[in-house]
């Protein structure tokens, strides 16, 4: 029998249970969900289940397959009722056979939880007072405590997008079934998360290890000033649940790293890169290439941005096809140092949301095999063809064979000083690595130093003395940190970076 099926009629689990029998099995665990006579203080007389069956069966089968992969079990199955059910009737059955009871219980629990969260099933409850209301099952599972007592509460209404010929009810069901991982809840992440939640994307994962800063707000209007200092992933999740209580929002309040990336990505169908650094972008890129999952990348700089879509099934370049190994954080500008106008990530994030919806709904005109560059000052767009590099065409990227460990930062790389005079007194040779224009507008005075712009220093690093201690200084400490790290790789162990840069003095 199929691992997941629907039944229009009352069913006896005995047959399904027998199908799990295995001479190796030392145990069997089952869960039965029954129709109860009340929900949130209202007496229920009967209910109806309705499912988008084609999609729901696929998702259900996927869940059972996941359970078999995750837990060392022998077999598992799930049957869900649809149609009209009375009080006490069997609504859902999950059975698992395994060598040992622990795995059987764990897998059984996993299957019922995931079915409740992910399988598109709606429940219409009929109340004693004659009212009735459609309830999303996932909503029952995750947000029961948030429910108001009235069954009349406002439901999400997707009619404006369902009205689109290419979306329709089938498109809406696709949105509901899809699981999207959004890495970064900042300038790009805010529009991505907001639009995808509004559209009814069934599962949204938010990865962000940062807390809100006041300087974020001009480009991240999802948040509020009195929330500064709180974890952004949790703040975003609360807003999204209020925007659309029907969807499942999962919080991963951590930085994406080599240890968590594979497992995180495993639970999602599509990744959207809204991060602000190359290390994260390349890590997500590599994980998506290895897992053969699509990813939508965007980056912004001052008044412009870049957009790229990676699809494993197409002849599309991944990030490593485009950007050379020399691409390191700090060596090109970021929002903190270079500045950015708030709506710039807003526009690029909105474009990521559009591309995500086009991809999920299989709409025409998807960005494929191209890098889109957008200059929001001149409003010029530039599309540059970016086919997959020749050695990678046969399948996955030839350069990515495993998740590469991130570059370790030496603990002593950054040093703190109250004044540069103190640093000079302590024997550091001070090098101002800012570019000529920055130096002209805010010269460094009162202390002996050399001015060698970052790029010149990186190119002429042979001129530095490995025995000498150097202190690199820039505006805010990000470029000096990256440059010092790079120079240490070139065999200069005594190069240090002024933490916080000139702004931190």
């Amino acid at each position, binding site marked *: 029998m199929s691992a997941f099926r629907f039944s229009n009629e009352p069913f006896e689990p005995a047959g399904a249970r027998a199908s799990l029998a295995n001479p190796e099995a030392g145990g069997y665990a089952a869960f039965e969900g029954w129709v109860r006579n009340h929900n949130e203080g209202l007496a229920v007389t009967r209910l109806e289940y309705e499912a988008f069956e084609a999609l729901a069966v696929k998702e259900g089968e996927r869940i059972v397959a996941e359970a078999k992969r995750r837990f060392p079990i022998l077999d598992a199955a799930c049957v869900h009722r649809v149609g009209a059910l009375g009080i006490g009737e069997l609504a859902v059955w999950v059975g698992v056979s395994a060598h040992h009871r622990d795995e059987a219980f764990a897998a059984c629990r996993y299957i019922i939880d995931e079915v409740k969260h992910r399988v598109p099933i709606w429940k219409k409850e009929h109340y004693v007072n004659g009212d009735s209301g459609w309830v999303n099952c996932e909503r029952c599972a995750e947000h029961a405590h948030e429910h108001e007592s009235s069954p009349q509460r406002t439901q999400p209404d997707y009619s404006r997008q369902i009205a689109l010929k290419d979306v329709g009810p089938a498109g809406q069901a696709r949105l509901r079934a899809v699981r999207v991982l959004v890495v970064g809840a900042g300038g790009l*992440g805010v529009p991505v998360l907001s639009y995808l939640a509004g559209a009814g994307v069934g599962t949204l994962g938010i990865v962000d290890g940062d807390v809100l800063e006041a300087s974020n707000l001009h480009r991240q209007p999802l948040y509020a000033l009195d929330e500064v200092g709180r974890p952004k992933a949790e703040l975003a999740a609360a807003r999204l649940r209020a925007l659309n209580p029907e969807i499942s929002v999962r919080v991963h309040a951590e930085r994406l790293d080599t240890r968590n990336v594979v497992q995180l990505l495993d639970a999602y169908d599509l990744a959207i890169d809204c991060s602000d650094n190359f290390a994260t972008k390349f890590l997500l890129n590599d994980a998506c290439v290895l897992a053969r999952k699509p990813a939508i990348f965007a980056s912004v700089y001052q008044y412009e941005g870049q957009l790229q879509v990676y699809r494993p099934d197409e002849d599309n370049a991944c990030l490593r096809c485009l950007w050379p190994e020399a*691409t390191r954080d700090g060596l090109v500008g970021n929002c903190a140092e270079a500045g950015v106008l708030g709506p710039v990530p807003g526009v690029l994030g909105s474009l990521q949301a559009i591309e995500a919806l086009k991809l999920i709904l299989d709409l025409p005109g998807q960005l494929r095999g191209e890098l889109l560059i957008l200059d929001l000052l001149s409003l010029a767009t530039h599309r540059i063809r970016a086919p997959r590099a020749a050695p990678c065409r046969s399948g996955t990227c030839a350069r990515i064979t495993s998740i590469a460990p991130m570059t370790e930062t030496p603990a002593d790389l950054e040093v703190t000083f109250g004044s540069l005079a103190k640093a000079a007194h302590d024997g550091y040779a001070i090098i101002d690595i800012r570019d000529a224009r920055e130096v002209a507008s805010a010269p460094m005075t009162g202390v002996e130093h050399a001015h060698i712009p970052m790029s010149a220093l990186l190119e002429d690093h042979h001129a530095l003395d490995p025995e000498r201690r150097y202190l690199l200084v820039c505006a805010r400490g990000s470029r000096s940190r990256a440059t010092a790290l790079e120079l240490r790789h070139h065999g200069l162990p005594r190069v240090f970076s002024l933490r916080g840069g000139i702004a931190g003095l």
Partner: protein
Amino acid sequence: MATRTIHVQYYAVLREQAGRGAEVLQTQAATPAELYAELRQRHSFGLTREQLKVAVNSEFSDWSSPLKDNDAVVFIPPVAGG
């Protein structure tokens, strides 16, 4: 040596350092690599060409492929802001 007319576009930090988004040049540079070396000197660009991508006529190009008269060349630095 042949002189070519080349239409150049700059993005991100290159636009900032060049003080303009685009320019039309008469140059003897025969490849994007030679062209970038010339422009780097003129505009004091910080980035080395190893850190950039170059596109010629809306296709990513090799640094050593020959330039033709009236080619449109775009130098693109990677950006990471989010």
